[in-house]
């Protein structure tokens, strides 16, 4: 054997693999829409977190001398039917909407991902039973199921979050199951099985990290859907209860005064639109950055 044949192969810095998350972030940064979405999301999070510092008035304080006043320097977005400051209520309303979006999607991910992983990895009768249950839940249109659940649980913001979370769960079960079915025949899973890893470890340590990307995309789009759903439930009187501020319940009362005080309807609706748009932009950008088929 010659010395040359035994020379070690040196790995140059060019051949080094870039961290997949760093690569995704680099790609995401290139997408203007996604970055605009991310900035608006961050602004909403800051508004919700520091609402009590930012809002000029107490969102529940009424003033009979300022009933349905149009926008002025004292009340930038006007006042409502009992003299409450619309700007302060929009700022505090971000809390209800964002927490509903995050908590309900958290419930959907927390239940849907493990169940989907179980269905996809275990297969057999477990998969059949779970898949049929998912089909049954998906057969009932999203909002109708959410309204029905919220009505049966009782009107409150926390019950609305549970109802939206439960309703959004089947989508995560189906997505995780599909991704798990595709991943479990990959070589790295075969290799993990060959070295004697237990099934739970293969599912959690080898499959789950490799299917996170589509779940992350779905989660950001689901938050947009959950914000609309919470606003819809609050609009119907099944979510946040008065006098606590919520964009949906603000629209409900604004509807009655649309001819006299259109500003009451414009701003909370615009806030919902902006929040949903930002999560949609972020979700679209994440999909492009994380899914090779969309590049």
């Amino acid at each position, binding site marked *: 054997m010659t010395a040359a044949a035994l020379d070690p192969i040196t790995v140059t810095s060019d051949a080094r693999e870039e961290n997949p998350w760093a690569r995704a972030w680099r790609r995401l940064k290139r997408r203007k829409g996604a970055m605009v979405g991310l900035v608006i999301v961050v602004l909403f999070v800051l508004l919700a977190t520091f609402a009590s510092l930012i809002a000029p008035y107490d969102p529940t304080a009424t003033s009979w001398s300022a009933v349905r006043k149009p926008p002025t320097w004292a009340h930038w977005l006007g006042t409502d039917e009992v003299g409450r400051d619309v700007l302060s209520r929009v700022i505090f309303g971000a809390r209800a909407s964002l927490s509903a979006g995050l908590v309900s999607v958290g419930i959907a991910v927390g239940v849907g991902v493990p169940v989907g992983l179980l269905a996809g990895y275990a297969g057999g009768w477990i998969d059949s039973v779970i898949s*049929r*249950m998912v*089909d*049954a*839940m998906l*057969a*009932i*249109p*999203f*909002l*109708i*199921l959410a*309204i*029905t*659940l919220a*009505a*049966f*649980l*009782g009107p409150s913001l926390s019950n609305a979050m549970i109802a939206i979370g439960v309703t959004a769960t089947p989508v995560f079960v189906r997505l995780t199951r599909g991704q798990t079915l595709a991943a479990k025949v990959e070589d790295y899973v075969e290799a993990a099985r060959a070295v004697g890893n237990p099934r739970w470890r293969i599912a959690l340590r080898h499959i789950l990290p490799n299917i996170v990307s589509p779940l992350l995309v779905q989660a950001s789009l689901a938050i*947009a859907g959950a914000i*609309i759903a919470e*606003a*819809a439930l609050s*609009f*119907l*009187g*099944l979510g946040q209860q008065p006098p606590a501020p919520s964009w*949906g319940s603000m*629209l409900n009362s*604004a*509807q009655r005064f*649309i*001819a006299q005080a*259109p500003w009451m*309807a*414009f701003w909370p*609706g*615009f806030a*919902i*639109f902006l929040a*949903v*748009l930002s999560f*949609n*932009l972020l979700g679209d950008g994440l999909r492009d950055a994380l899914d090779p088929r969309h590049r």
Partner: protein
Amino acid sequence: MLTFLTQRLLQILPTLVLVSMLIFGLQQLLPGDPALIMAGEERDPKVLEEIREQYRLNEPIPVQYFYWMKGVLTGNLGESMRLKSSVASLVAEKLPVTLQLAAMALLIAIGIGIPAGIVSAVKKDTAWDYGANLFALWGLSTPNFWLGILMIFLFSVTLGWLPASGYVRLGENWQASLATTIMPAFVLGNALAAVLMRHTRSAMLQAMSADYVRTARAKGLYEGRVVLKHALRNAMTPVITLLALDFGTLLSGAVLTEQIFTIPGFGKLIVDSVFNRDYAVVQGVVLVTATVYISLNLLADIAYVLVNPRLRG
């Protein structure tokens, strides 16, 4: 085809049974004694016992489910406590109203979404494409109840062109019927138009890069003919299938739209029943909606197989 149809029918049966169990199970979420809820103000133990007997509330839950299903299969969806009429007759009365609204919304969505998708794909990376994509983002992000309120403000309050609420049956006076439903139909169709635009754009882009389109161009055909006759016809297959599925979503969207425009349809029935704790109606309406949705899924699958010869087997 017959084998495929039989297989699909056999697949939807367990789904339908599970849907019925889910809807029946919802009643169990109710806190307290259902007999007390049904009795309303009445607290006489004799009356409560009669209600329990009448609705078999003393029986075990599987037995209650069996009797409920037996009724459903014979067309008896129960009775509305509030309206004192059968749920089946309420559904038969309200469903056509929502179907008219959904059909108009679908036409509006097709009229806007498909041309926008075609233009966006054909003029890719131009101002047209960006404009169409912005329209799609607007449609997907706008809550339909907000859009409804804004349209009432513009077209009813400010301009006075259209009525803000109410409904006239198509058979009674078609002009008045169109005037009362055009705004809600637009509100309902807006988001669907955005979804359709995105699907059409994606399907058209795929079709435009196919070999048969290149061949058509190589033959010297006009670009308009290549786009409309060759690319569009092939791109429409998945879009039409998705339309059938989205029709079910329109039923869901109708809940809020009917509430805003005070249209006495299926959506308003479910909301009114929810607030009046008329649970038999809620269960009946949800069951009918799910059955319509599953049937549309089946029809979409059949349509897909019919238009795609490779799937016929």
